[in-house]
Structure formats: structure tokens, C-alpha cells
């Protein structure tokens, strides 16, 4: 699993507009890939943990797969939660190829999960 996720992240981090991406696995460990110096992978790891922990306080979810896009002035963070608890985060610059492609990447991650399971 870890290898599959690692390869998938490494292949996606170089997409135009991708700043940093990572996966928090269901055991709490993180895999991250940074593309630019100003968006260090360590910061994304913190964000992944923060999101995973904060999510527990939200109202109950009715579906196992959940997709959220957080839109800021200068960028977007996309979180995708897999049924087995693996969590993907993609940080992209707004108005770039990567931002346009978030839906496809989320779909790939979910399909990757199905293949891995």
C-alpha cells in the first residue's frame, strides 16, 4: 500500500500548479511530496493530521467517501477520504492545470484504493 501510494504521489507532484501533496494512511503515518520550497511537505503533514483529527468533531457523515475542496485566494486544498480511512491532500495553485484536474486526481485516488484493496 505504502509503495503504491508513494509512486502515485511521486507521479502527480510534478503536475503544473501542484504545490505539495500527501497521504495520511489509516495507521496515522504520512507520505508527502513537495514541489516548491514555500510549501514544505512537513507543513502538509501537519495539515493532514489536523484535518483528520478535526473531522471527528463534524456531524456524522452519511457516506464513506468524502471529497472536499478548500478554496483560498491563492490556492486550494483538496481532501479525499477513502473508505478504509486513508486520506489524500492535494495543495494546488488556483487557476492552474492541477486545480482544473482535482476531480480526476480524486477519482484516481479512490480507484487506486479499490485496486490496492
Amino acid at each position, binding site marked *: 500500500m505504502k509503495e503504491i501510494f508513494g509512486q502515485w504521489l511521486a507521479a502527480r507532484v510534478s503536475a503544473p500548479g501542484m504545490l505539495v501533496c500527501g497521504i495520511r494512511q489509516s495507521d496515522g503515518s504520512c507520505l508527502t511530496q513537495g514541489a516548491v520550497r514555500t510549501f514544505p511537505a512537513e*507543513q502538509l503533514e501537519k*495539515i493532514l493530521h*489536523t484535518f483528520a483529527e478535526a473531522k471527528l468533531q463534524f456531524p456524522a457523515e452519511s457516506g464513506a467517501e468524502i471529497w*472536499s*475542496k478548500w478554496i*483560498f485566494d491563492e490556492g486550494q*486544498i483538496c481532501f479525499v477520504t477513502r473508505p478504509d480511512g486513508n486520506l489524500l491532500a492535494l*495543495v494546488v495553485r488556483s487557476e492552474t492545470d492541477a486545480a482544473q484536474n482535482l476531480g480526476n486526481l480524486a477519482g484516481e485516488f479512490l480507484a487506486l484504493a479499490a485496486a490496492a484493496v
Partner: protein
Amino acid sequence: MGLCLGPWNGNLRIKKIVSAKIEPEKVTRPSKQHQILFVDDERAFLETVSTLFVDWSKQTWKVHIATSADQALQFLKDQMVELVVVDINMPVLDGVQFLRVVNRRFPDLKKAVLTGHATETKRSECLASGAELFIEKPQSSDGFRAIFAMLDELVTWTPREGFQGMLRKVGLQDVIQMECLGRNSSVLEIHNQHLRGRVYIEDGSIIHAGVGDLTGEPALHKLLSLSGGSFQLQPFEAPLQRTIQGQWEFLLMEAARVRDEMSMQAAGASGAETAEAEADGADQPDGVKVVETLICSGTGEVLHAWQSSETDARVGFLKALSALSDRFAQELPMGKFDRVEIQNAAGRCIAQVHADRMVFVRMGTEGLPV
């Protein structure tokens, strides 16, 4: 927007707001101050706005007060003022009459009405008498903040820059939102050098929009995507047809989304329409309906709820989003947070979290996305 939806409650509320006033900061007085005259027969209210607004403006406002129309007219004769803010219920010469006199004598003076006794008739009279804004007196500190932002935008407006009347912080979308929140009826006339259009709002619902050959939602999207021009609020008159249905909150959200897409296309950053539709997993499928909306102030005071049976939970959720977005922004240089779009098998929701307002819109027919 923290706008008042009910009647003005008088001194009790004033005391509460004054007690919540922030500590004065050490500021250097700017070389140029905007001269603003407030006219109201309630001295306590005048003292409140004077204290709060001067403070919030960081001394860029010089607030003058007058407790009668006579006193105000005399002041206007003697001193240059950029904006006059008037209550409509005053003895002897009421606010509407005062506006007409001011409009005739000082046509370049900007005028706003701030009243605790708003009616549709008064509103139409005031707009027809030259007022640029007609606002209900707020009941909360948030409400005062929103009013201050609108008036500040009005007073700093200069022609030939963006939208006349209000721009940047308080733009077209904010004015429409204000009209809808206040359940007002009006016609917003929008024009620039290339086109002219209208948005019709009746009892707080957007019922029609038209620009060129476009009508309905496409026209609304077109008008809200304009980067500059002029707009004026006119008294309501019924359109020939009604082309827009649905909740204004969703319409404005959708317009914002369309505007974002249009700006991306203009920047050449997007591909063909099909690719774009495939790329955005949050795209709204045909037939999806808004099933819940909630609007509250930046501090969680509920301003409007529609089919929201769990308002406390929703407000809590919005606050959690706000706190999370703050933490994300601390970790990564992403700029100001605007909104989050959430989707799962049960449906989709959009939550917008700004300093002065939080909005929750849920679409879908079953279950809760979050």
C-alpha cells in the same frame, strides 16, 4: 452581512454595543479625513455611531452629528461634507423631505438612510429622493461592522473606478445580498460602456435579470461577472416576466462559481468545456436542488435559516471550518479563505466563511453530506 432583520431596539442595545467596543488603538491621525454627517434625533445613537465608526475607521473619518434637519442644513451650508447619513423619522422636517432638499442644494453629496423604521414605501421614496443606500439600523456589533463597511465603501468611492457607488469590499453581490436579507423589493440597474442590464428583487427574492439577449440566470451570471461599471438601486417595478426561481443564496453562490470559471477561461487557464466539466468533481449535476440554507454573522448569530432544522449544529460546523481554515492558512501561504465545497454520495454542500458572515448551502435530496 450582519444586517438587522427586525426593529431597532433603542438605548438598551446601544449600551450593549458600546460595552463591546474594542479598546482604542494608538493611531496617527491621517492627513485627510472623510467628513461625514449623521442626522438623527436620537442623540444616544449618534454618539454610539460616532464613537464606533471613528474608531473602526482608524481616524480616517471625521464624524459630525446633527439632531435635526435644520441643524444639518445649516452645517452643510458652512462645511464641506462628503456623505450624509440620515434617519427618516425626525420631527418637523422628516428624512425624506430632508433628502429632497439636500439633493437639490447639494447634488454631489452622497446620501444614505439609516433607519429603525423601514417600510417598502419609505425605501422607495428615499431611493427616488437621491439616497444611494437605504439600510436598517443594526442590532448587533456585527451589524454595525457591516454598516460601517458599506458606508466606508460609499464615502471612498470615486467615479470611473470599478463600480460607482460601491466596489471592492462591498460590490454588486453584497448589495444584492443586502437587499435579499432585508426582504426588500428593488431594481438594480447595472451598466458599463458596452451593456446595460437589470436585476429585479421582490420581497428578498431575485425574480428576474436581463442583459442584452440574455434573461434569467445566464443574465444574472453575466452581470455579476462584470469587472467594472455603474449600478443604481431603483424603486421596484414588476418585470414583464419572471425568469428566476429558487433561493437567492444558491443563485449568488452559483454566480460566484460561474464567475470563477469565466475568469479562468479569460486567463486562458482552462481547457475545453468538456474537459473542465470532467475535471471538476464538484460540478452540480442537473436536477440537484438546494435543500437547506443558513446564513449567520461572523460570530454565529443566525440571520437567515431555510429548512435548517439543526441550526446549532450547522453554526458549530461553520465555526469548526473557520478554525480549521485559519490553521491551514497558518501552515501554508494560501491567502484569505473563501469557502469549502464538500461532496459525497448523499449530496453536496458549500460553506462560505468570511469575517463578517458565514453561509451554509446544502444540495441533494437525501442524507447529510456532512
